């Protein structure tokens, strides 16, 4: 198990930082934008439900990029170092690593630009290269407006029914998962069988690209944290793919 996948319930922490800003530094907006552009230009959208014609988008981006890929990169740091980075620093690390690894850019080019910008100072004022390509921006806005739904027609009967008790499986560690660590091996109750099936993005997330039934599962705190658990009057719901559940 990766620590990043099992944060829920970790103890010995301090108070929450109740910072309401979305971005605390101006530069963070840019890496958010780059990530979102990559999501919108990902080749896998060709097979999405909205009618995207990815072949016609004049971008040189020719890879799959989803949340799962972002998480793989950002979470590949050792957990002992992971928490020394602010949220968007990890995005910056993961995304830069991806473009270097795939050969879109080289370390030399990157260093050259970084040195240049650092030398010129007052970064916010410096202009970016001008190379406008409206059709790219149109695809990006289309993606933002039409999205990439994981909902698929139901293809199989649900294995579990509402009110049924289930045990959460404990599959092997993966690059990215949609199963919160603190629920592994725990007993819950099916609260709701979602209509239709759901798939997660292609890529490094267990085997979730196969559309499957998914459930809202209800967990009592005593079944997660044990009888000694002191906080009463609360309950946890999680949305879990069928592949994560088994019979009690």
């Amino acid at each position, binding site marked *: 198990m990766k620590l990043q996948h099992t944060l829920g319930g970790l103890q010995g922490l301090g108070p929450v930082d109740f910072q309401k800003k979305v971005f605390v530094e101006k530069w963070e907006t840019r890496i958010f934008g780059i990530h979102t552009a990559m999501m919108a230009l990902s080749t896998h959208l060709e097979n999405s439900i909205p009618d995207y014609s990815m072949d016609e988008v004049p971008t040189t981006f020719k890879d799959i990029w989803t949340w799962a890929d972002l998480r793989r990169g950002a979470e590949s740091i050792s957990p002992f170092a992971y928490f020394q980075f*602010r949220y968007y620093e990890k995005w910056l690390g993961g995304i830069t690593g991806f473009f270097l690894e795939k050969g879109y850019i080289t370390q030399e080019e990157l260093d050259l630009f970084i040195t240049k910008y650092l030398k010129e100072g007052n970064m916010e004022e410096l202009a970016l290269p001008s190379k406008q390509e409206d059709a790219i921006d149109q695809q990006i806005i289309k993606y933002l407006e*039409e999205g990439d739904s994981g909902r698929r027609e139901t293809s199989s009967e649900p294995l579990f029914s509402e009110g049924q008790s289930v045990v959460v499986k404990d599959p092997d560690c993966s690059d990215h998962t949609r199963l919160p660590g603190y629920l592994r091996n725990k007993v819950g109750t099916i609260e709701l069988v979602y209509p239709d099936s759901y798939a997660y993005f292609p890529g490094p997330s267990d085997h979730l690209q196969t559309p499957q039934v998914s459930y809202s599962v209800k967990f009592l705190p005593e079944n997660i944290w044990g009888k000694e658990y002191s906080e009463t009057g609360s309950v946890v719901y999680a949305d879990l793919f069928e592949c994560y559940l088994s019979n009690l």
Partner: protein
Amino acid sequence: MTIPGDEMFNYSANRELESSAKVKALEALLIEKGVISSSSVDKILDYFETKMGPFNGAKLVAKAWKDAEFKSLLLKDCNAACEKLDMPTGMSGAEGEIMRVAENTSSVHNLIICTLCSCYPWPTLGLPPYWFKDPTFRARSAREPRVVLSEFGLDLNPEVEIRVWDSSGQIRWWVLPEQPSGTEHMTEEELASLITPESMMGVSKVVL
């Protein structure tokens, strides 16, 4: 001894400068190489400033408070409810493909978390604030929601059941907060102005 964790929002100027140069270098290279267009990032940021933000959620909540039929629809099918109102194009777009709303009442309080990352309903609430992404929030809210809420300044009556929704799957959850008393006469616009992103994720109430 300085605890580095304390510096979360106060890194050295040098560190921020380096990140700043690095992201600028990356964006410049991606434009030069034809990966993105020179206005792509600006277009995206503009989209979240003008079209998709907590003002959408606030509008839906205010309408639900005034209109019981709309409220039922919102709770039954959030995406269908969005289509009923005069909302921007894209309410079922990126990170809002399937949204569900949990209703706060006098006996039930809902809290939305994402222990694995930071799943958030973009069309109705915009982008997630830092507290939602804070690893300490993600860790503690799953186990001791009442204590965490109280640190956020929200002391709930012990009889109120807290329902924590961990957004681990494909559904993007958000909260229909309770209408504060004394606001019955207000217009939808007036009501909407009271509604914060925090109240629509369940870490605070709407107050007059």
